């Protein structure tokens, strides 16, 4: 039976701040799913949507979903890192404030300013809209992103500081003695190893990302600065990949911390586990200078390598996580409830979602594949069935009551399976459409694609309904818990 030692101080741990952030992220997930459904049903000609509005929705959906994924990931990481080191709450508040301010600016730029450049603010799109949106709107969008970045930096640095105070230096926290010498006096828990890796590469990423944003801003106002478009594009894509991948790495900390309560087996840092996480760190960091220096010294083949690495950098983490999880779960007499099922689903979805990424990464030179719905297919799998499922799992865990621990009611089972079918199915349709060369980012679809669009819309509705259940259950239980 589950180890319930931690349930006693659960209320203390599940600190209110993370819960608020998770609830916020949950609400954004729901809203943006609606935006996504509007897009999908417009493609399926079920509703009539002006293409301009379609692109605004797409920009909002992309930015909002990535933001919410990062927010929920950050909340999960904060929640569980707080079990091991002492964190200053002020930092999380500052993070939330900056994050929300940034989001307000971004939404303003999209819906009032009419910015529809796509969440990747692809250079040189912001400056050349053909009159659809103004420089000011694009600038507001970029400043909003800068604020969000600043918020994350505050958060990461506070976490890094707390880790240093507790573990002395980063090599210890990364379990490097274990990696290099195979042994270590006190091995840090998986949460510390994971958090340290995330803090390091996302800090670096945010610093470089901020520089890229600053440049894009300058370019907006002084268009004669002919900024190397390829360099800017590479930086943005690379930063985007790292950032969105990191949201999964943050969320997976929830799996490391919660699953042991259900398997009764503590999640330990093994040597392969430590190597897997450090490998990702090295992969990602090795690619930055390469992007920065490519003008001067890098041959073109390294450029392609960089893209491939940015796609595949998450593999080692996935491998060590998925294998370890299977090891812990099998034969443990694991108790299933909504929380553990969703967390398990999260790791599963992440693994499945990576397969199309591998295919895409290996043939990433193939521009055609890259511009079809194949790509949204890949990231909707690992986000919708991966990160989002993990977040819902952590939410369910936070509000589980004592009776709930072993309980997986019929309704919950039904909703859970509906979510699995809906979300996986929705992503699969993207993949099949992509394999049939249906382009991505097209507001208006050809008649022969409409059938797929409609099936996807149906599956999307199903997904949305289950998600509404997860989020409202979390919200109402939080509220009633607080009233007590």
């Amino acid at each position, binding site marked *: 039976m589950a180890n319930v030692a931690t349930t006693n101080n659960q209320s203390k741990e599940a600190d209110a701040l993370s819960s608020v952030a998770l609830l916020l992220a949950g609400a954004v997930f729901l809203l943006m799913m609606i935006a996504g459904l509007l897009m999908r049903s417009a493609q399926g000609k079920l509703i009539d949507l002006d293409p301009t509005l379609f692109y605004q929705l797409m920009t909002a959906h992309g930015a909002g979903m990535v933001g919410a994924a990062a927010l929920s990931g950050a909340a999960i990481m904060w929640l569980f890192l707080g079990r091991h080191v002492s964190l200053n709450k002020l930092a999380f508040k500052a993070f939330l404030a900056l994050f929300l301010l940034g989001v307000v600016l971004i939404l303003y730029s999209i819906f009032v300013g009419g910015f529809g450049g796509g969440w990747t603010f692809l250079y040189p799109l912001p400056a050349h809209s053909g009159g659809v949106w103004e420089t000011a709107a694009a600038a507001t969008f970029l400043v909003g992103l800068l604020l969000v970045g600043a918020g994350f930096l505050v958060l990461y*640095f506070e976490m890094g500081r707390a880790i240093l105070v507790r573990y002395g*230096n980063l090599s210890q926290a990364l379990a490097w003695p274990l990696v290099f010498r195979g042994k270590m006096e006190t091995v840090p828990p998986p949460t510390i190893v994971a958090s340290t890796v995330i803090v390091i590469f996302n800090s670096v990423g945010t*610093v470089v990302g901020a520089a890229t944003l600053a440049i894009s801003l300058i370019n907006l106002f002084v268009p004669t600065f002919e900024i190397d478009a390829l360099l800017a594009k590479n930086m943005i894509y690379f930063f985007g990949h790292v950032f969105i991948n990191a949201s999964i790495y943050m969320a997976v900390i929830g799996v490391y911390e919660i699953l042991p309560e259900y398997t009764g087996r503590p999640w330990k840092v093994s040597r392969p586990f430590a190597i897997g996480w450090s490998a990702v760190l090295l992969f990602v960091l090795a690619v930055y200078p390469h992007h920065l220096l490519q003008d001067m010294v890098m041959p073109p083949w390294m450029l392609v390598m960089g893209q491939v690495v940015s796609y595949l950098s998450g593999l080692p983490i996935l491998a060590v996580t998925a294998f370890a999880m299977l090891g812990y779960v099998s034969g443990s007499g694991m108790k299933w409830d909504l929380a553990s099922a969703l967390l398990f689903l999260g790791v599963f979805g992440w693994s499945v979602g990576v397969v199309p990424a591998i295919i895409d990464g290996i043939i990433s030179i193939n521009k055609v594949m890259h511009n079809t719905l194949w790509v949204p297919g890949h990231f909707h799998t690992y986000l919708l069935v991966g990160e989002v499922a993990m977040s819902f799992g952590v939410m369910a865990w936070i509000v589980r009551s004592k009776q709930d621990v072993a309980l997986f009611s019929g309704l919950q089972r039904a909703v859970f399976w509906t979510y699995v079918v809906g979300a996986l199915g929705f992503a699969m349709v993207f993949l099949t459409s992509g394999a049939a060369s249906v382009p991505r980012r097209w507001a208006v679809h050809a008649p022969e694609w409409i059938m797929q669009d409609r099936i996807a819309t149906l599956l999307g509705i199903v997904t949305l309904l289950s998600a509404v259940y997860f989020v409202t259950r979390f919200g109402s239980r939080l509220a009633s818990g607080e009233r007590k």
Partner: protein
Amino acid sequence: MISRIMTLHRPWMTALLIVMLCFVFRGMLERHPVTHIVVQLSALVVAGWLAGQSLGGALPALRLTDWNAGGSVGILVALFAGAFWMLPRNIDWALGQTSGEFAKFVSIPLLMGVSLALSWSRAPALAKCLIKANAVSMLLSLSWVYTTAPERLCNNYLLGQQQELGSVLLWLAIVISVIWSVPLFVSQPLAKHRPANIQTARGVST
């Protein structure tokens, strides 16, 4: 007091020497933006920093633990002074007019070096990290601007020189990040250790 500074705190004299060298060799240093900005201006900051160490050691009251709690004000002064001297037109001012040259030699050591020396060690660790991160980020964007701007940003320097400055700034950003991050992996950089004399500062100033 002066003699105490002179005998106990040698950095003060090094600082003076640096400023003098920067002044005497200004013609040579200012001929190229790399030596001007990366060598001369940084040297002036370092000189101010050293002088500030001496001053703070000899006259702890200067640290203003109340008005400059957590070093916040001193750091703000330094940031604004830095922003001012980052503007290309002020570099032109320093090159073209005596008033500008004078302002440079006085304000950079004082407003950047000395005020940082009197403030930095007391700043919260988080703030320090953010400022460092911002510095690296700024260096990267400046480097990008200078390497790609199609026009000269300083009237006194050539386009080619400007591009050289851009590449040097990129390397500077990389070197600085390595210098700042490598110790985190090897040593025990706990936020706690602060110079002992800060504790005494309050007693002296009140």
